[in-house]
């Protein structure tokens, strides 16, 4: 294993067996991960994107020792997740989030104290550490309230506090800002960035593309159990056909008009989508030769025509990649 890598995954397959029918006699197998290959460098934020059911949580749970692989090898911090489980668990933080996973009838401080003891945090440091993480997630004002009185966002913050309580070397965050209000979400992203500065490796799964774009220098896209892309965001932009996107909207286009747009210099892709009577064409553009004005000039006879340019977002890239994989 390369010392610069925090995670190294080779040909990872994970199959789930489920039973149904009369007396559960009928077995079905679902392959959630199909030969995943992945490297994640130390001390950075790595983003894992993918549609629902792509296998993101399965992969996160395998990496965090909560699930065994069916085949393949998985190393985290240079240690095998199957053989060195105990060693790894004290160095891994996991935030699965959601409404569950906390003792609702006791307060946040007591929840954290319980887990601090399970993680063997020295008793002399424990209370100070609890106060510190509560402050970091901005829950000081509610630290002595029962968790059952917490909103979803507050519970999410408490999950994060628990995840960083034992100062892990690598932190797995599964949708960390889900359910948070914009201010709290921004603070959480700030917290994530500060953890990286402290040397923590972050493995983040998210549905929020802007979040991945803001936080992750490198992302992978998981679709139907396979990594379909693993690159920097700039690299992915170039892969899907350019970092400029021109959107054209009108009440329908003729085939020859679309062909004309496809023939423009630097245009790598033209995709159409209908919005009621309106049709939107999205052009990925690699060079500066084609501008909104050029496009407008090619489409006379559309008084309602609207043309605008924007930077190709990670969301565009993600949708292109997932669509490509589906085809």
């Amino acid at each position: 294993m390369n010392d610069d890598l925090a995670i190294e995954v080779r040909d990872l397959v994970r199959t789930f067996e489920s039973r149904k029918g009369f007396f559960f006699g009928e077995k079905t197998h679902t392959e959630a991960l199909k030969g995943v290959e992945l490297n994640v460098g130390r001390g950075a934020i790595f983003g894992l994107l993918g549609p629902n059911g792509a296998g993101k949580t399965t992969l996160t749970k395998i990496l965090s020792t909560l699930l065994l692989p069916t085949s393949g090898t998985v190393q985290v911090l240079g240690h095998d997740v199957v053989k060195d489980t105990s060693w790894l668990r004290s160095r891994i933080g996991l935030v699965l989030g959601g409404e569950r996973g906390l003792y609702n009838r006791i307060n946040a401080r007591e929840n954290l104290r319980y887990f601090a003891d399970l993680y063997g945090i020295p008793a002399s440091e424990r209370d100070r550490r609890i106060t510190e993480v509560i402050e970091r997630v901005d829950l000081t004002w509610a630290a002595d309230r029962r968790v059952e009185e917490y909103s979803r966002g507050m519970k999410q913050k408490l999950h994060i506090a628990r995840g960083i309580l034992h100062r892990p070397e690598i932190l797995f965050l599964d949708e960390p800002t889900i359910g948070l209000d914009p201010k709290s979400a921004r603070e959480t992203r700030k917290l994530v960035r500060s953890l990286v500065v402290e040397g923590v490796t972050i493995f983040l799964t998210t549905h929020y593309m802007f979040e991945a774009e803001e936080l992750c220098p490198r992302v992978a896209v998981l679709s139907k159990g396979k990594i379909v892309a693993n690159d920097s965001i700039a690299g992915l932009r170039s892969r899907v056909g350019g970092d400029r996107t021109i959107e054209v909207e009108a009440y329908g286009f003729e085939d020859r008009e679309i062909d004309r747009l496809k023939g423009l210099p630097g245009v790598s892709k033209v995709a159409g989508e209908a919005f009621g009577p309106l049709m939107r064409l999205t052009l990925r553009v690699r060079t500066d030769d084609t501008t909104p004005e050029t496009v407008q000039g090619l489409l006379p006879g559309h008084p309602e025509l609207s043309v605008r340019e924007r930077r190709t977002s990670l969301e565009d890239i993600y949708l292109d990649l997932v669509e490509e994989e589906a085809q």
Partner: protein
Amino acid sequence: MTLATSEASRTRATGASLRLAILLFVADPQWLVPSTVAPIVFGLVSFELFRGEGPYFLTYAILGAGMMSMWGQTLYGSGWATGQDRNLGTLEPTIQAPTPYLYVVLGRIIWNVVAGLFGGLVVYLVVVLAAGGPPQLPNPLLFVVLFVFVMVTLASVGVVFAAAFVYSRYAGFIQNVGEFAFYIGTGCMFPVVLLPFWTNPIALLFPPTWALDALRYVSIPGYAGFGWGWGWDLAGAVAVTGVYAAIAGTVFTRVERHVLETGDLSDY
């Protein structure tokens, strides 16, 4: 940072789990029913049932109602706590912590033993108040020691129930089906020797059977149990409990591996 998973940290984990069990108990007033109200009711009913049944009727009343109050709290409670972890979604982060889950279960079991003894004490006080005096006990000290030991044997079976709850979310079904068979089969309700002979070898696989037989020997003169006396009963209870303790670690390691294979830790 380096975190120890030494014996000291395991002991701390057990302590933390015990503390959590107490906090959850205090935070949930419905527990007053099985811990206090139910023992009062059982004690009064038992007193009325056995009233006038010879000189040792108070002992019968205390043992019957006491076991009824304690066995559920200790045995059922141990498995139930793990079932609760499944329901709350806390089983996953607890298993993900570096301390083996067995040490967490031990903390809860210690609390369940204490809570069970509290139920037994309530029964004792109720019966004594109703009778206007304490029961005749030939050897009160031995009675108390064996009474506590019965709880330990119940707890050892509780470990198995806890493992079952880690293993599968359907453990509650098995526990619900098996609880009264266990209650009768191990002699909590009445001596096992009153049951058909073929049930006796099965009953002897469970530590409480031995311990309860010993308890009856020392508290009821003339009691005819398995016939080998309370000393052998106690030795048998210690041996079978020891076997349970010895295999507990292996059982939990295997159960944990199973759930990591199936991936159903978060199912409830």
